[in-house]
């Protein structure tokens, strides 16, 4: 009796979909789609030894922002609400008192900052300030820089800052370098 030639038996792939579904559901459940985002900052190194004379900064080149324990703002000696912080920071940075910044459109008020390169924002908070307020202030100050850069990108290149090439972005960052200085924490004053 001649045997029929047997082929290799095929594996039934019908349950493949079930297995795949099982795995899929597992990953669907365990996945967390949170994109971590936040405000990136760079901390200054701890000074090795304090210089004899602190660097001389003209008072007009400093934009002093104080936040107290009750989350109230004192900007350049005047109480201010958070809504106005962004625009007054922009006015300060874009002022261009000595006229060296050819790209600036500021009012050239002699009592405000010389140019964006010299303009420094100084931020000081209390230990009792809430983290929410601190982040809000940091955010508004960063927004002031970003808006100035965006406006300059639109004026010079007619494009949004994000659409520019990295070299052009660097050039614009060079016009408005982000200079936010945070005061050394005080030991007392709880």
């Amino acid at each position, binding site marked *: 009796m001649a045997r029929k030639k047997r082929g290799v038996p095929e594996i039934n792939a019908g349950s493949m979909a079930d297995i795949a579904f099982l795995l899929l559901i597992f990953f669907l459940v*365990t996945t967390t789609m949170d994109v971590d985002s936040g405000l990136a900052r760079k901390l200054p190194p701890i000074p090795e030894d304090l210089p004899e004379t602190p660097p001389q900064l003209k008072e007009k080149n400093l934009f002093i922002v104080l936040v107290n324990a009750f989350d109230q703002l004192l900007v350049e000696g005047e109480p201010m609400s958070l809504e106005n912080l962004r625009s007054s920071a922009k006015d300060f940075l874009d002022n261009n008192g000595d006229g060296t910044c050819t790209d600036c459109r500021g009012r050239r008020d002699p009592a405000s900052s010389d140019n964006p390169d010299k303009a420094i924002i100084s931020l000081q908070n209390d230990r009792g300030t809430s983290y929410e307020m601190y982040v809000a202030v940091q955010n508004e100050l960063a927004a002031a820089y970003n808006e100035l850069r965006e406006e300059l990108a639109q004026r010079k290149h007619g494009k949004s800052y994000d659409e520019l090439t990295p070299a052009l972005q660097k050039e614009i960052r060079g016009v408005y370098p982000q200079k936010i200085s945070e005061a050394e924490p005080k030991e007392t004053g709880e």
Partner: protein
Amino acid sequence: MSKFVKKKKGDTPGISTASLPDIVFMLLFFFMVTTVMRETDMLIQVKVPEATEIQKLERKSLVSYIYVGKPKDKYQATFGSEPRIQLNDAFASVSEIQSFIAAERDARSEEEVPLMTTSIKADVDVKMGIITDIKQELRKAQAFKINYSTRKGSVLD
């Protein structure tokens, strides 16, 4: 033989499910690649503040997290309700941050160390005192790149 034989009426053709596994596998691979397993057990409640000028955190493998917030209800009996710091899976004190950063650095290769970022995930109700202490410790540990973790949203409400 006529070419125009009327087809039999009635039986709707069944949809072939042969490509179903392919579709499912495609989805599966997508989720496998994008998934991030939560490696830490949260002992504290964190609701991060909102901000608009946010940047995405690149290279998640190079990010170390410091959580700050109130302990969760079930831990409040032992740890109180004052904001605490959590590193990895345990409550920690401010003084442990330096050794935590050192351990995080040891886990990476040497050329990656300068790219490492520390993400501070702090609750909105935390006071700045504890954050300032953390920042001072990070400066001492020479971990200068930090990121205040926030959600997208308006700060002016």
